[in-house]
């Protein structure tokens, strides 16, 4: 990864981002705002599953309300994240915390896709069988904690980077 970071740091795109000092803070701000949409969309869906909010709409309606926001915001995070990697390759690619964040993110995204799939196959899946409520509660809580871990790992990237040799 060191070699990749070294090559990337020398590209025109990277040098341009490094030159314009306002780009990284601005893109980081957009990254946080989009993260906010992702996190809160998942949070509201979680509350609906737990019957703590959104009693006015069905599970399918709740998903239709929030999942598109989540996917579009994730796309914004992907683009802004790529800009940050190109602008600061050493801080990210050569940093174990960055890869931990990517691993956690992969699990969280797979969970979101899995959730959407179960709902499309069987709209009543998350509302049926009161005996399963405990499992459902654990799943919602785990998912929330998983996104929290993505954010924590993201913030720790700033504190664990290995400077170029």
């Amino acid at each position, binding site marked *: 990864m060191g070699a990749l970071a070294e090559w990337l740091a020398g590209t025109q795109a990277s040098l341009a981002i490094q030159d314009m000092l306002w780009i*990284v*803070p601005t893109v*980081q*701000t957009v990254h*946080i*705002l989009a*993260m*906010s*949409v992702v*996190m*809160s*969309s998942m*949070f*509201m869906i979680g*509350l609906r599953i737990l019957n703590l*909010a*959104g*009693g*006015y*709409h069905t599970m399918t309606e709740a998903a239709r*309300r929030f999942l598109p926001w989540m996917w579009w915001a994730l796309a914004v995070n992907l683009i802004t994240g790529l800009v940050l990697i190109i602008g600061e390759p050493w801080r990210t690619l050569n940093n174990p915390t960055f890869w931990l964040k990517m691993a956690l993110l992969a699990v969280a995204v797979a969970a979101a896709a899995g959730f959407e799939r179960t709902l499309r196959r069987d709209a009543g899946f998350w509302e049926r069988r009161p005996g399963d409520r405990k499992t459902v509660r654990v799943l919602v809580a785990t998912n929330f904690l998983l996104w*929290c871990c993505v*954010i*924590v790992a*993201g*913030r*720790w990237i*700033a*504190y664990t980077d290995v400077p170029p040799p």
Partner: protein
Amino acid sequence: MDITAILQSLEAMTVASWVRESDWAFPMIESVHVIALVLVFGTIAIVDLRLLGMPTTSVAFTAIARDCLLWTWAAFGLAVITGALMFVANATSYYDNFPFRMKMLCLVLAGINMAVFELVTFRGVSRWDKDHPVPIAGKIAGTLSLTFWIATITFGRWIGFTKVPF
């Protein structure tokens, strides 16, 4: 007691030196601050967007506000606690920091906007709660709220680029 003395006495607190000197305290508190602020912004944005009629006026404003604002306040409380812990650790330099001052200004403006909305516009909510266009005062409140919170987050991130560590 002048402001410098107050700031210095904050920095002298045991908890302040712990945040300052521990290797993991500041990053960990900062991480929790981020979790809190994303929930503050995301949940209040849902209410603000409803004031702008999005996604629909067919769901009552009061139902959405009831679902969201409890969590907004809880997350805001967590953001204040974690923010205060970071502040006391380096009170003097935050106090002098331009983006920090702008961030505090934006928070005050967001608070005033919310208070005006609650005390004036929200009084007549029964007339526009559901299936009616939100009055212009409500639309303005929603737009201002989104603006002030985005500005708060922007200045907050900017602090990190004017102070070490970021």
